[in-house]
């Protein structure tokens, strides 16, 4: 509720700034000038404080408790120290299933998305205006596909009974009967990878293309005259110039790919019935809302947050180095 009403004070306050009275104008001007940024920030701070920062603190508090339905209904706390974390770290599920599915998948999908996005950007840079518009519109279409519907389309394409892939492979005689691609961990994450790359490469291609257009043409032509081939020109001129852009897209996609949720949760078996395909986010969610073990689920969520915070720290340092703030 508070967030809906929060915007009200700021415009009022700003209007009063607009009409400084003649006497004592100088002094009031100084105080108002100091207060103005805070008045402008106030609504955002109230919303972010109440709905982002306090919940973040609270998830840590809950993670230190045995928090279940009883605690939710009575509102009482039930601290059990670091038991939830001990349980998480001593669980074989974490080491054999969840961490490989989370970290391994993030690494492979970041490499795949960035490499593919870069190739697409290089291709776009060589096209004329008309074709560039056509191809980038198509890329926008892929970007715009919501994660939920995109996941359902890929699920339909790989469907065990009626899917396109099975009927093509059966028609070509490569497989004898229908294959359920969702039960095997590798093929399951192969489909997730396809989904994530398809959805993630447009951002990278468009961002890198914007950078590519800023690379000095004279330098590239000079290098070509000197006999450098495309490969050398890319690594010696384009890549160093675009290094800041690359580090930003790599870190942002790492952060995004670490927290894939809908893409896994919505696939057959992804919502917990196939424990082989759990990742950290899905595990946390099903422990909380499926098993009512909110304390343990929170501990897993805290672990995921810590990993992402570490990557974010690197991201912020990169940004500061570029002096963009």
């Amino acid at each position, binding site marked *: 509720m508070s967030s809906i009403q929060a915007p009200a004070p700021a415009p009022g306050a*700003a209007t009063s700034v607009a009409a400084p009275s003649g006497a004592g104008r100088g002094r009031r001007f100084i105080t108002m000038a100091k207060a103005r940024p805070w008045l402008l920030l106030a609504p955002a701070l109230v919303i972010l404080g109440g709905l982002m920062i306090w919940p973040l603190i609270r998830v840590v508090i809950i993670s230190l408790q045995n928090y279940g339905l009883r605690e939710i209904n009575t509102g009482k706390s039930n601290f059990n120290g670091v038991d939830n974390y001990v349980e998480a770290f001593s669980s074989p599920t974490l080491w054999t299933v969840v961490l490989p599915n989370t970290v391994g998948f993030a690494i492979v999908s970041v490499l795949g998305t960035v490499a593919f996005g870069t190739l697409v950007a290089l291709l776009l840079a060589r096209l004329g205006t008309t074709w560039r518009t056509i*191809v980038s519109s198509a890329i926008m279409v892929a970007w715009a596909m919501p994660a939920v519907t995109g996941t359902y389309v890929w699920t339909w394409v790989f469907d065990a009974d009626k899917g396109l892939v099975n009927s093509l492979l059966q028609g070509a005689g490569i497989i004898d009967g229908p294959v359920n691609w969702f039960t095997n961990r590798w093929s399951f994450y192969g489909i997730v990878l396809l989904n994530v790359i398809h959805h993630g490469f447009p951002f990278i291609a468009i961002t890198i293309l914007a950078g590519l257009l800023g690379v000095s043409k004279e330098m590239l032509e000079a290098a070509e005259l000197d006999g450098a081939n495309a490969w050398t020109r890319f690594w010696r001129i384009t890549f160093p110039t675009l290094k800041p852009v690359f580090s930003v897209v790599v870190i942002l996609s790492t952060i995004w790919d670490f927290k894939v949720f809908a893409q896994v949760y919505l696939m057959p078996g992804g919502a917990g019935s196939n424990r082989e395909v759990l990742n950290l986010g899905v595990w946390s969610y099903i422990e909380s809302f499926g098993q009512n073990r909110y304390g343990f689920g929170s501990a897993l969520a805290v672990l995921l947050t810590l990993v992402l915070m570490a990557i974010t720290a690197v991201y912020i340092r990169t940004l500061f180095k570029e002096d963009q703030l």
Partner: protein
Amino acid sequence: MKQKSLTGKVGIGVAVAALLIFTLFPVYWMMKSAFDKRAGDGGSSFLPKEFSWDNFVYVLGDAGFGLYLRNSLVVAAVVVLISGFVALLASVAVARFRFKFRTTMLMMILVIQMVPLEALVIPLFLQVKSLGLLNSLLGLMVVYVALSLPFGIWMLRGFVAAVPVELEEAAYVDGASWWRMFRSVMLPLTMPGLVATSVFSFITAWNEFIFAMTILGSESDQYTVAIGLKSFFGLHSNDWGSIMAASTLITLPVMIFFVIVQRRLSSGVVAGAVKG
């Protein structure tokens, strides 16, 4: 002038064709199945076996997907308006003023953006529950405003910073108050940014899945489109024709928005203003 060889041109043509096929295939397959009356039969035919609007008629009629579309539109509209306004005010503060804790503020906004939704969903579920907003769209709107704010501030900051300070000063010289300057200089010049930010908040609200699933629970007349799709999944068989028709209805508005924004963003409004 550089001469391109014929093989180079052919290579580029093949690459473009392959890229277009890969990029557009899921959308094509979705729409093909949506228009196919016998989509559920499956198979590998690349055209609808029996072209018809039946799936859409069923989805919007008997299946009641129209209600979910309306719910999502209401949520998205409220979120776009509130978060756009709040984000613009905050971005003016961080882009135009030098004050204590400014860097801390920016850092906080960046960090918050990276927090995984899975970590927020447990405490926010409890918070929404204790406010008595569980199973209601209002609870969802409150959460979405918060989710779309950090990115909105971050994005608008750049647009505000790009407005030349000279224009602002010119407004003051002409006797405008700060608020007047904000309305007549800042607001029109950051409009492309606001449009882009609004599109992103719209998409956040339109596509969001995990909070809708958690907060709306089993209250199916409050469902948004992202979780409304679940109703077409049966225990043993899925009604793929309807799922793809409903997916098409969800996806099209987002796609139209994206293509519009792409055009709008590329036009340099500020440059025009300075040249006068």
